[in-house]
């Protein structure tokens, strides 16, 4: 091969970089068009687009002196020309050949990017590929060379697409195309910001127009933030682009017939997050094709069309982007999951017997778990769903799984809109403030000094807390971080933040809880990141700094084991404890609505709601409660929910002025009532503890009663049917 003289560095380097980024984009587009073409062979527009892409590439390569690329592109262009002119018909072989061409081009691009030259090692491959393409052009598909190559096409795709992934994650991902409109808007806002600054610098302290300037600064900042965020947003469709090819190759390798469908490709997501979920999404799609969709003959037997469907759906929902990977395959049978778990020694038969469907499905996320009957080259090496979960959790998202035997499986990923701003709870320990990301927070408990004596116990070196039915390992944050402990630390009441991340669940003991805040994450320098316990720092509302805790790393540092190990060891007792007494005891939220001593001359009546029905306990400022036709309603996470105010707490509070806040239990009503949310306005929440239901006795009263801590509580009537455990469908919804 003729190697042109080495071009001058510098300018040419920039050109090359641009060329690589553009070409990779072009190849991605080509790939998409090709897979599409296979489905709609008569679409001339598609062929024309592919032709244009190859043609452009050929032109630029010639100019930059990349001979190998040029030759390959030329061969492809000739073939595509014939296809465009209708001299050739679209066949699987043709598409396969063209896809191989793309792989070839991509490999060379990668070599240019990493080494700077096209490399010569694969020239043999080039020649073979060119011969293959030329053969196709002539319509001679009989030569043995072709059939041999054909086998390679089928055998290679997994490798090829892996190379493709690696290639596309370098230069290509460092550049971002932004609408000039957006950039102009940012520039205008920056101009505005400068003007406002000038005015503020010039105005004397206590000047009259200062509040106005402050307001303007506020609005400019907000607009600027929004514009910059918008600039970083990329449609998830960019990520979806590579899947048609992957699914096609996988389907051929696994002997399946699969069609891929997209929905909501225009949904925007932060560029860095898009990169972060690339791998988890790939895993999920691979699983869907390999394990989800059945072989065609089995599908036909089951009365389904031979061709399976993998649907990827993206949409925005209350501050999150939800991405579903839905397949209409065999579904996951709970039985085989449990059998596998027992085989692996993760569960005892008794535990398995008492597990619900939802619980059992969660086992799939445990490391080293795979129900695949056979290990294939594609997936099923015992890693998969746990990787998906870990990666998604790393960016503050979550993964859920829903499956119905015979109907299919849905993997749902929830990804926060941006990495930079996360809701967090500020806690205090050893005199310092720390931010605890909300997504790892499960619940909070207040432990008085008196309770601490009873509920906190030691087992070996581990300190455990009796939280309702289970034992929770405790980690003292100040001790772990070597902070100064206040001299009488032991005598104090303290808070437990129950946290869970990467399968580690533990109670973080802190001195005090501060307000929840939306924090802006600032990265730490490398030396501080190395400590491993902090993911970043943030500036709090009062101007001071706080470090952001990495919950999983904190747990690991304190020696809290992951649930996988815990299930077999320490947690074994826990699962039994959690399931066995459930027949009689259920966790209840105890609250009161009546004023103390009102009318009855004694204690206010205490009410109870099953904890499983309560989604959240919110403190709502009165100003946020609105009235529609005399009924109190609350806008809660984009949903309008009616408020029930049985104790007339709201009226009483409104007398105090609108700065007062009301405590609202956000509850999910049982399914019989359409599984809707309702807010219960309560005077105060007293406790969460396990209680036992009393047999209904119409002579006492018509209410269902419960015995909690040896005292009688009234179970809220709408939730009484739940006492037998909420219906499975509702449970899923809660999760």
């Amino acid at each position: 091969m003729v190697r042109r003289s080495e071009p001058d560095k510098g300018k040419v380097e920039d050109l090359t970089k641009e060329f690589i980024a553009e070409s990779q984009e072009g190849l991605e587009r080509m790939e998409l068009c090709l897979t599409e073409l296979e489905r709609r062979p008569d679409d001339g527009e598609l062929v024309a687009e592919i032709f244009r892409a190859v043609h452009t590439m050929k032109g630029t390569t010639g100019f930059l002196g990349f001979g190998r690329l040029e030759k390959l592109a030329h061969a492809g262009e000739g073939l595509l020309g014939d296809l465009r002119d209708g001299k050739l018909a679209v066949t699987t072989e043709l598409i396969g050949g063209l896809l191989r061409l793309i792989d070839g081009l991509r490999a060379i691009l990668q070599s240019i990017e990493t080494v700077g030259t096209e490399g010569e090692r694969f020239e043999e491959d080039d020649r073979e590929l060119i011969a293959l393409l030329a053969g196709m052009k002539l319509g001679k598909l009989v030569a043995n060379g072709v059939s041999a190559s054909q086998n390679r096409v089928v055998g290679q795709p997994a490798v090829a697409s892996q190379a493709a992934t690696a290639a596309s994650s370098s230069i290509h991902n460092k550049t971002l195309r932004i609408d000039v409109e957006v950039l102009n808007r940012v520039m205008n806002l920056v101009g505005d910001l400068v003007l406002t600054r000038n005015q503020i610098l010039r105005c004397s302290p206590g000047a009259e127009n200062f509040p106005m300037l402050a307001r303007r600064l506020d609005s400019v900042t907000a607009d600027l933030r929004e514009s910059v965020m918008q600039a970083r947003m990329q449609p998830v469709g960019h990520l979806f682009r590579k899947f048609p090819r992957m699914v096609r190759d996988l389907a051929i390798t696994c002997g399946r017939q699969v069609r891929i469908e997209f929905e909501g490709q225009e949904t925007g997501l932060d560029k860095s997050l898009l990169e972060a979920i690339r791998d988890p999404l790939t895993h999920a799609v691979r699983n869907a094709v390999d394990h989800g969709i059945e072989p065609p003959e089995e599908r036909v037997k089951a009365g389904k069309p031979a061709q399976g469907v993998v649907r990827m759906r993206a949409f925005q929902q209350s501050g999150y982007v939800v991405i579903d990977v839905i397949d209409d395959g065999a579904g996951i049978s709970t039985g085989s999951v449990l059998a596998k778990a027992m085989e692996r020694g993760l569960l005892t038969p008794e535990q398995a017997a008492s597990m619900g469907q939802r619980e059992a499905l969660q086992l799939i996320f445990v490391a080293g778990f795979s129900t695949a009957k056979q290990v294939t080259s594609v997936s099923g090496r015992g890693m998969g769903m746990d990787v998906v979960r870990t990666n998604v959790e790393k960016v503050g998202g979550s993964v859920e799984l829903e499956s119905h035997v015979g109907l299919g499986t849905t993997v749902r990923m929830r990804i926060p809109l941006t990495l930079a701003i996360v809701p967090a709870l500020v806690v205090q320990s050893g005199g310092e403030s720390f931010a605890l990301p909300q997504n790892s927070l499960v619940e909070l408990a207040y432990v008085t000094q008196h309770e601490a004596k009873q509920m906190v116990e030691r087992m070996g070196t581990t300190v455990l807390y009796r939280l309702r039915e289970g034992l929770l390992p405790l980690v003292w944050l100040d001790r772990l971080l070597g902070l100064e402990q206040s001299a009488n630390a032991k005598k104090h009441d303290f808070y437990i933040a129950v946290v869970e991340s990467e399968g580690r669940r533990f109670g973080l003991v802190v001195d005090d809880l501060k307000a929840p805040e939306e924090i802006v994450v600032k990265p730490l320098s490398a030396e501080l990141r190395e400590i491993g316990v902090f993911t970043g720092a943030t500036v709090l509302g009062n101007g001071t700094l706080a470090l952001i805790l990495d919950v999983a790393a904190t747990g690991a540092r304190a020696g809290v084991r992951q649930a996988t190990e815990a299930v077999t060891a320490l947690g074994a007792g826990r699962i039994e404890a959690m399931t066995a007494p459930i027949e009689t005891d259920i966790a209840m939220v105890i609250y009161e609505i009546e004023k103390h001593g009102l009318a009855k001359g004694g204690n206010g009546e205490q009410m109870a709601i099953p904890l499983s029905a309560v989604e959240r306990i919110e403190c709502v400022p009165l100003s946020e409660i609105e009235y529609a036709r005399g009924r109190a309603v609350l806008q809660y996470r984009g949903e309008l929910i009616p408020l029930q105010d049985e104790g007339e707490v709201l009226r009483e509070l409104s007398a105090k002025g609108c700065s007062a806040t009301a405590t609202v239990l956000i509850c999910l009503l049982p399914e019989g009532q359409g599984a809707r949310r309702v807010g219960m306005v309560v005077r105060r929440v007293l406790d969460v503890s396990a209680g036992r239901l009393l047999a209904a006795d119409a002579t006492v009263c018509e209410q269902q009663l419960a015995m909690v801590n040896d005292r009688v509580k009234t179970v809220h009537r709408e939730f009484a049917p739940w006492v037998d455990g909420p219906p499975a469908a509702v449970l899923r919804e809660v999760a």
Partner: protein
Amino acid sequence: MTGATEMRTAADGTVSICSLRVGTGLFGIDTRQIREVLKTAPPHRVPLAPAYIAGVVPYRGEVLTTVSFRALLGLNLWNGANCVLVFDDEQNEERFGLIVDGVSGLIALQPSALEANPSGLDARSMALFDGAYKLHPGLMVHLDPQRLRPSRLAESGLFANESGPIGR
């Protein structure tokens, strides 16, 4: 002020040195290497960090890691007001702050007057100092910010033994 200094530098070949006080010692850093001098609240300390890391301070929308020069010299921490010198490291894009007791002023000195570190110096001082200027009241130890980078300090391993949980 900076403008005037630069003009003088150009005129007679001297460099402008910013003199600093840490404990009883006098130190100097080339002003061209200092990005900014801040007078801020004490840095927010980072638990489990090496002792020479004083903590973090907010700086231009970022969080800046600061090195305590007192800790590097093995002096007691002091609670009085202090200054943070902000340095940029162009190659590694690593920005960091150095905490000193105070900044005294600017002195114009001939770079040729800088004496190299004496051979008898202990390893730690050798790693921190970059020679000295002979001034009339005493020596002014010259510092090279590049030697005080947190990553460099961590690599050297000379200061690691002082690391450990704060407050123990």
